[in-house]
């Protein structure tokens, strides 16, 4: 592999423990694309939910501890870019990092509290994997595609954590009202993006724990909307969204369900590497594009 890009990589707990296929397909695709993901050693849980209280610094310590580890590793390999795959981790890390860049007193507070580690110097950049692909160039991605997913209708689902809030500036990975990055990816792998109005709606998030009916209500709408657009699959960028959408699918009749896959799984499939899709879904997709099963 010719390495074009070398970046720090923050996996996150949900991804690592619940959806290994997301991570494995990403590694497979990166190998093909010349992207070297260097995992941050001993990263901490990001904290899951960003603190909404401006002075509740305690909630941000997990993220900061990971930044400190990333900063050490980054010096070693010569990069300050941290890439995440999970939308929730992205949202938390991005927001915490922006706060530390902007608020000198908060940074001092945090560094004083974490007296068992070197200080964090807020020079890291937090980037979602979709934007890393965008920076590499979707045309470059397209050049390496061996199995274009021609004729496959894909519903790009953004959810909210990648696009909201728009303050502090820089959190959304794309235009929060009219994002196109997932559509661009879908086109670059030869598939066809489906337009559907619920692509940036929230899946219900952590209500799945206490009030699953809210998640059911929301995901049924999202899936139904994608189905009306004749989507063959829904493309998800987030472990929690995927979990909730799959929960929504389970409450629907089989004929009304739309399979949910991670964007890196379709990317890997089109690059001719292991997609880590279930055999059933992979066969459905291959049948649709009239291709052969990749061995």
């Amino acid at each position, binding site marked *: 592999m010719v390495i074009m890009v070398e970046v720090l990589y923050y996996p996150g707990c949900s991804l690592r423990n*619940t959806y290994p296929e997301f991570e494995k397909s990403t590694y497979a695709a990166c190998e093909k694309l010349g992207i070297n993901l260097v995992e941050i050693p001993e990263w901490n849980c990001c904290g899951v939910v960003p603190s909404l209280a401006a002075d509740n610094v*305690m909630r941000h310590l997990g993220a900061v501890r990971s930044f400190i580890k990333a900063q050490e590793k980054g010096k070693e390999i010569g990069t300050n870019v941290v890439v995440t795959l999970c939308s929730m981790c992205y949202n938390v890390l991005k927001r915490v990092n922006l706060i530390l860049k902007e608020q000198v007193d908060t940074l001092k507070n945090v560094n004083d509290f974490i007296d*068992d580690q070197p200080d964090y110097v807020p020079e890291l950049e937090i980037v979602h994997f979709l934007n890393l692909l965008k920076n590499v160039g979707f045309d470059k991605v397209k050049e390496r595609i061996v199995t274009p997913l021609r004729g496959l209708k894909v519903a790009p689902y953004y959810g909210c954590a990648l696009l909201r809030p728009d303050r502090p500036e820089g959190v959304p990975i794309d235009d929060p009202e009219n994002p196109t990055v997932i559509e661009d990816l879908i086109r670059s792998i030869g598939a066809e993006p489906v337009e559907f109005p619920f692509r940036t709606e929230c899946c219900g998030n952590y209500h799945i724990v206490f009030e699953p009916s809210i998640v059911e209500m929301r995901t049924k709408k999202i899936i139904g909307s994608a189905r009306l657009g004749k989507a063959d699959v829904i493309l998800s960028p987030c472990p929690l969204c995927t979990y909730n959408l799959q929960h929504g699918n389970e409450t629907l009749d089989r004929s009304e369900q739309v399979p949910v896959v991670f964007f890196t799984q379709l990317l890997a499939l089109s690059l001719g590497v292991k997609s880590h899709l279930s055999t059933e879904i992979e066969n459905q997709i291959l049948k649709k594009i009239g291709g052969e099963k990749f061995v």
Partner: protein
Amino acid sequence: MSEKKKTMATIYIMGKAYKVPSTLTIMESIEYAGYRFIRGCGCRGGFCGACTTFYRIKSDYKLYVDLACQKRVEDEMYIVQLPFIPAEKPKWDLDKMKPTTDEVIRVFPEITRCLSCNVCTEACPQDIEVMRAIQAIRRGDLEDAVNLTFDCVACGACSIRCPAEITHYQAFQLARGLYGKYRTIPSKHLLKRIEEIKEGKFDDEIARLVNTSTEKLEEEYKKREVEK
């Protein structure tokens, strides 16, 4: 005169001042002051974690934790013992579980509340990197958690200090159990001993101990060979 003064330390046991020889451990000093341990004494050897003691030293804001049997007294030390940590011991069945983070979280969901403050690590009298081990479980790295917590005596000091109310030492027991059962090679001598127990090799000896009077047991205990 000044020489003599150095040999004695003033300590405060639950607020009351005592002068004790400064060569004593906290546990010995408490006994020197006239208290008798009926709980929270344990093995006196730094292994059982029963004599967890919290203290501060005059003019120092830090709260320290040590095992009373291992830590020597210091002058102007404010001491309280916490021989029991209130925590329910949940039951689990290793045979029905898998060696995964999800299984540990199912029994101890509160570990997901970890704030990464590292106060647990500061509280540990065994110098275990407690937060690092909790985060290792979160990352799905049970092996790291197991290796980091090998010296845990389950004193529970971490769990008293934790703002997320995690009972770390119990979660580590589960992690070690899962890892030991599913990820390590079974030790031959252990399998042999289990066979021996099943075959009843120790039944007679156990029955004899059960039927021996307390006085006789005490006598035997005093005569026992501790080290060979």
